[in-house]
């Protein structure tokens, strides 16, 4: 039983590692003009980023909002008043940080 779980965990780890190393994560955000920002994500092979963790942080790194890419591989959040950054976190070494200033108008 123990072997089954360890094997399963190893397989999962290998599958995750394979996915993460083979494909480059991609994320782009744009201002909707109504006080919200939409981020879209994905991977360079065209696969969806649904479920990928998303964070909106202030300049000091405090998390202002946290969520996940939805089934359309999108994440919508309320635009913060001050400086902010968006973190797309698809695993270690596969995170993307976008400065709020670089969000397309």
């Amino acid at each position, binding site marked *: 039983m123990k072997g089954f779980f360890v094997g399963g965990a190893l397989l999962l780890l290998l599958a995750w590692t394979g996915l993460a190393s083979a494909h*480059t994560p*991609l*994320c*782009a955000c*744009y201002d909707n003009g109504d006080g919200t920002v939409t981020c*879209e*994500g*994905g991977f*360079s*092979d*065209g696969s969806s980023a649904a479920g990928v963790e998303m964070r909106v942080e202030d300049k000091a790194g405090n998390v202002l909002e946290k969520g996940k890419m939805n089934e359309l591989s999108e994440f919508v959040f309320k635009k913060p008043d001050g400086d902010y950054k968006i973190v797309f976190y698809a695993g270690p070494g596969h995170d993307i940080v976008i400065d709020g200033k*670089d969000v*397309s108008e």
Partner: protein
Amino acid sequence: MKRTIGFLIGMALMIATPAAAHFQMIYTPEAALTSGGELDLKLVFCHPFEAGHTMDMGKPLEFFMVHKEQKTDLMKDLKPITWMSETNSGAAWEAKVKARKMGDFVFCLVPEPYFESKEDAYIQQITKVIVNNAGMPTDWDAAVGLPAEIVALDKPYALWTGNVFRGVVLGDGKPVPNAEIEVEYLNHPPVPGKNTFQKEPLVVAPQDAFVTMTIKADANGQFCFGIPKAGWWGFAALGVGPMDKYKGKENSQDAVIWVKAVDMK
């Protein structure tokens, strides 16, 4: 006297033989965008290597884009313009189109067939260009379903200079064995903000065969072309579509695709 007449006929034939090919163009400066926005598209029927004679375009029959398999009609966005070439001016079209989301935007144009009086025949170049935003591949390798179409086997917006570009020529949805394909370089890129080509060419061809290069597809309709210089390259597969007659005359229904290469710096 006979010699003089022969010489004059020979000269007339040389002059009548076009050095460059007709190419329907959908031009926008960049194929690979880092952030989306409004694209400025120019639809011009021209001779791209020499910036020569611009043919008058009628109102296109279809102009649309495909993004994430969704088709959007763009006919209402078309506005008539006058395009200046090195030798004349011609009727062309422009459109400003929003492309904000990530992914591929496949722009497709089905022009009204153009009557080429010298050949007493029509030419209809069904044209495709693919613009990508933020690197996410979504639609570039799928056939749109045009009657004459080149389907890319390499991302047409992610080519380094020296890469090859490969495609499959389709006529009525089926591969066209041994299709003849003309290739031209956009040697006088359009001047930003103006409806004209830049005057200075980027390269000089040593001979006419280098102006319009002709390559052939293989038995499966596939072709491959090594790209020697950065910029836009046009590929036109001639007479591959099923509509070979229009208004009682011959019609060459061609498939055109434009790809852009960039230098490694």
